[in-house]
């Protein structure tokens, strides 16, 4: 579906990304992990069109595309939910879902239709929210996250990128969000790129783990035959040795499908 090949990005003296590859297929959750400053957010921004790449190729459904601005990414079918959800606290759930793309009738807001579609969307995702008409300020962190993710789905994307969706959440709420991620994959057949620091989350939902270290690929692991220790050592580079490299080689090709 979406493939990055040899992506490089430089900020002044910082080589934030060097020759990075990443692939995500339909119906697949790819976890993108790495230490702070590894370049995860930068990679996401290049896909989302917030930053342009210096070199490399972005392929969409097998064809090279250029993503110069956020609009390009949205038009292709790539939706991004950033870490700071950027919801308007004072607006209700419906207002947030449709912000910037309100449904209008005779030039006026069609609240009925927007509310109906909101409920429909939340229902199909089995998202539980007390009411679509309360300000999102009074929702819990997990609910806010699900609202933000739902909002990204309104444009009918094929790939969804989630930047640390569970970072600020408790156990129960994390589970809700992970459930939602699974439904995106299994019921909607979306490709999901999940950035996370949390190995338990990654282990729970990811099919494939791509590790970034200091702006470079440091292995892609298939989830089934990799231990958390292997991933963690790839992240930290603590045991950047033959064992991990071997593990990466063995699982690498399988992960590329």
């Amino acid at each position, binding site marked *: 579906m979406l493939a990055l090949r040899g992506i490089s990005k430089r900020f002044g003296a910082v080589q934030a990304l060097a020759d990075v590859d990443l692939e995500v297929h339909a119906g697949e959750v790819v976890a993108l992990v790495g230490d702070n400053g590894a370049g995860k957010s930068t990679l996401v921004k290049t896909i989302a069109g917030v930053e342009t790449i210096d070199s490399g190729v972005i392929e969409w459904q097998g064809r090279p595309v250029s993503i110069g601005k956020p609009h390009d990414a949205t038009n292709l079918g790539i939706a991004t939910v*950033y870490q*700071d959800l*950027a*919801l*308007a*606290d*004072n*607006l*209700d759930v419906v*207002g*947030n879902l449709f*912000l*910037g*793309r*309100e449904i*209008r009738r005779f*030039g*006026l*807001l069609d*609240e*009925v*239709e927007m*509310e*109906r579609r909101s*409920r429909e969307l*939340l*229902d199909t995702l089995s998202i*539980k*929210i*007390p*009411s*679509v*008409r*309360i*300000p999102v*300020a*009074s*929702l*819990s962190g997990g*609910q806010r996250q699900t609202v933000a993710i739902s909002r990204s789905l309104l444009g009918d994307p094929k790939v969804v990128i989630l930047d640390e969706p569970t970072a600020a959440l408790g156990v129960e709420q994390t589970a809700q969000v992970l459930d939602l991620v699974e439904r995106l994959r299994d019921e909607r057949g979306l490709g999901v790129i999940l950035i996370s620091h949390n190995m338990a989350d990654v282990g729970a939902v990811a099919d494939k783990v791509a590790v970034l270290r200091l702006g470079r690929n440091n292995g892609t692991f298939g989830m089934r035959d990799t231990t958390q220790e292997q991933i963690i050592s790839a992240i930290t580079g603590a045991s950047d040795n033959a064992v991990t490299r071997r593990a990466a080689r063995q699982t690498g090709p399988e992960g590329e499908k």
Partner: protein
Amino acid sequence: MSDTDQTAAPAAAAQVDPRLILAEGGVRGYLREFWRRVRGGELGSIPVVVGLIVIWAIFQSLNSGFLSPSYLTELSINIVATGMLALGIVFVLLLGEIDLSIGSVSSACAAIVAVANQTWGLSEGLSILLAVAAGLAMGLIHGFFFAKIGVPAFIVTLAGLLGWLGVSLWVLGKTGSYNLTNSNGLIDLLTNTYFEELFWGYLVAIVVAVVYFVISLRGSLARRRAGIPARSVTEVIIRSAVLAVVLLAVAVVFNQARGLPLAPLIFLAFILIAGFVLNHTSYGRKVFAVGGSIEAARRAGINVAAVRISVFAISGTMAAIGGVFYASVNRGVTQSGTGQQILMYAIAAAVIGGTSLFGGRGSAFSALLGVLVIQSIAAGMNLLGITNYAQYMVTGIVLLAAVVIDSVSRRSQKASGRA
């Protein structure tokens, strides 16, 4: 938006989190819902309506002339100038910003009306148009410096406060004061027109209530058809009936004095239009979004600068309209312009009426409620012969109370996050 009854449609039940205080039907359900709102800080206009009733009761008990038809008619006309400014300020507060210039803008525009008409010989209608255009231009200037240059709104409009005050004195020139006493002239008619035939008041009351009923009923039925929670028909009928009773009562009061006055009718029309724009158009949604989260608005593709500039333009325009009404009520303009306190009263009115200082929460209606409170206090104290300093102190306390309610409700709204 927030006062939609969630009880009616069964579809709602499936979505409701079981831990939530379930909305129930009937009186009990309403009481519970009400209590939930009190605790959640979603009080809306309840405190200010209660406050207004208390204020009226106090003044009435101290002087039985207060609630007399002629005094209330006078009150309804005197609220209009400040009310127009307050309505503009509502938009600015919704962005979470402030406009300190509106007093001076209204003074300058009142001066422009007088001078354009008396010295330059323009017709009254053209003079008014010129003044309103000037107010619009002043607002655009504030908006430009705020949104495009990045100067804090507080400072831009503080500069406006000084600058436009200077302009108003300059426009008035050596003459210093102008009379606008041309009865049957447009300016005079604005605040000196009464529809004396009794039926006018009743007609307006009935028409407004019926229109409200039809719109609410259609909305309720459309929601039901779409399978989303809707107000029950009974509730729509009750609400419309209450509205009709209130409006008819107002009409009766007006009719016992000089008939239905034009000025508050114009004010009401402005409020309805502003409320409509805020709640039913994309533009209004953008204003709320920018006030709630600039980042969210920007990411949703909203042109934040354009929204900001337009809002300050609205504020300037409304200040100009308020200035015209002020000149009309006072039948002229002097060097003291629209007065020192109109700025404070307008901002206080918007906040007292329930528009948050923190941005993103409020309504056009709050301008009406707030200005009624402020002017009732002023009028009542005048009637009792209470001196200026006490008036200022009481108004200050009321404003403080309103801001406290605003702050507390904001906090409890954050704290009451459920599930």
